[in-house]
C-alpha cells in the first residue's frame, strides 16, 4: 500500500516538476495577496498580531484552492482516473496518494511564501511554532481539498465548485491557524497557541478519516 501511495506521489511530483502548473500559480497568487495586503495595512508592529496572521492564511488558503483545482484535473484528462481506478488498489490508496501530493505542493509553496511574509513584516525568519502550524493547517487543507477536488472535477463548473465546497468546510482549520499564528508572531509562549494546535490536530484527523471513508463513493460512477 505504502509503495503505491509513493508511486502516485512521485508521479505527481514528476509531472509538476515538468509543467509547474500548480506550484507557480499558487506561489504567484499567494505572493500577490501578501504584497497587496501589506501595502493596504502597512507593516508596523501594531498589526503583527491583529492582521498579519489573517494576511498569511488568506494568501495560503486562496492560493491553495488554485492548486487543489489541478490535483484531480490532471487525472480527468485522457480518462487517467479510470486508469488509476483499474489498478488493484483500494480507493483509499488513490486518495492517500493524491493527498500526499497536495500536501507536498502546499508545503512547497509555504516554504517559499512564508519567509517573504516574515521579511515583509520585519519578523524573525526562524519560527518553529509557525512551521508546525503551517504543517498542520496544510494537512487539513490537503485532506479536505483532495476529496473536494475529486468531487468537483466531474462537474462542469469545477473552478467555481471547489471553492464553494472547500472553503466552508475548511473554516475551522483557517480559524485555528490564524488564532495559533497570532501568539507566535507576537513572540508569546507556546502555551498560548496550544489549544489551537489541538484543534488543528483534531480537525486533521477527522477530515482524513472521513475523506478516506467516502472517497470511493465520490470517484465511482
Amino acid at each position: 500500500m505504502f509503495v503505491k501511495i509513493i508511486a502516485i506521489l512521485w508521479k505527481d511530483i514528476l509531472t509538476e516538476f515538468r509543467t509547474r502548473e500548480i506550484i507557480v500559480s499558487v506561489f504567484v497568487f499567494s505572493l500577490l495577496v501578501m504584497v497587496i495586503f501589506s501595502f493596504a495595512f502597512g507593516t508596523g508592529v501594531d498589526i503583527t498580531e491583529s492582521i498579519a496572521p489573517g494576511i498569511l492564511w488568506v494568501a495560503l488558503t486562496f492560493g491553495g484552492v488554485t492548486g487543489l483545482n489541478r490535483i484531480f484535473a490532471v487525472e480527468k484528462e485522457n480518462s487517467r482516473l479510470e486508469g488509476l481506478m483499474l489498478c488493484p488498489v483500494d480507493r483509499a490508496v488513490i486518495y492517500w496518494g493524491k493527498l500526499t501530493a497536495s500536501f507536498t505542493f502546499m508545503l512547497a509553496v509555504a516554504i517559499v511564501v512564508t519567509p517573504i511574509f516574515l521579511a515583509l513584516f520585519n519578523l524573525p525568519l526562524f519560527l518553529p511554532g509557525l512551521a508546525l502550524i503551517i504543517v498542520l493547517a496544510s494537512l487539513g487543507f490537503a485532506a479536505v481539498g483532495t476529496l473536494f477536488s475529486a468531487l468537483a472535477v466531474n462537474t462542469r463548473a469545477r473552478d467555481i465548485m471547489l471553492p464553494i465546497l472547500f472553503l466552508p468546510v475548511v473554516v475551522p482549520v483557517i480559524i485555528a491557524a490564524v488564532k495559533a499564528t497570532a501568539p507566535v508572531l507576537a513572540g508569546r509562549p507556546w502555551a498560548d497557541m496550544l489549544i489551537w494546535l489541538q484543534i488543528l490536530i483534531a480537525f486533521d484527523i477527522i477530515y482524513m478519516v472521513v475523506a478516506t471513508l467516502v472517497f470511493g463513493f465520490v470517484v465511482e460512477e
Partner: protein
Amino acid sequence: MNKDVPAAATMAIEVEGLEKSFGEHRALRGIDLTVSRGECLVVFGPNGAGKTTLLKILATLMKPSAGRVLLDGVDIWEKPVEIRRRISLVSHQTFLYDDLTVLENLRFYGKMYDVADLEKRIREVISWVRIEPRLHDRAGTLSRGLQQRVSIARAVLHNPSLLFLDEPEVGLDPHASAMVRDVLGTVSSGNRTVVMTTHNLERGLELGDSIVIIDRGKIVYQAKRDKLSKADLRQVYNRYTEAGG
C-alpha cells in the same frame, strides 16, 4: 496468479441479468452472456447501444443497477481488488500521462500492479508493441497510434488473463490501425480471454471466436464466428439494429 479461482469455474466471464440505468435512461436491460477461457468475444452495436457501459461494468469501473458478473467464478464486487489484478482495459483513451516518458508511465503502472521484476517485464512488453526507440520520449509527444501501442503495453504489463478492448482503433489512421491490430493479435493470443467492442464488422469477425450484437441495452443476436460470413454478419447487423432501420 489466479489463486482465488474456484476449481469449478470453467467460464472466464459469466454475466447474469445485468442492468444499468442512468436516471430514466436504461443503458443495459438484462444482459446474459458467458465467455469461455481463451475465447475472444466481439461485441457489435450502434452508438449508445450499451457496449462501453457493459465493458466498464466488466472492468469494475461502474457498478450495475441489477444483475451480477462473475470473472473466473468470482463475483467482481465481492473481491474487486483481486479481480483488478486479472483484468485490463484498452480504450480509445490511453490513460497515459503526457508529461511522463513512456518508460515512466510503464514504471508507474507497473508499481501500481506490483509487477514482479518490473524492468525485465517492461523490456518484454515494449518489444511486443515495438516502441523501444521512443522509450524516453514524453507520451504527449507521440502520435496517436504510438500512444495506443504504449497503452496496450500498459494494459498487458501485469499479464492479465482477461483483456477488455473498447474500440481500440478509434481515431487511428489506417496504418496506425493496422499496427495496433497486429499488436493486439500478439497480446490477445494464448490463454487470454478477450472481450472487444467495435463498429468495424469485418475486423471484429476476423478477431472474434464468437460475436454478440447489442442494441438499446439488449443482446439481439449471438453466434459463433465460424457460422457467419462477412456478408451474413452485415445482413444480420442491419436487421437487428436501429442502424439497419
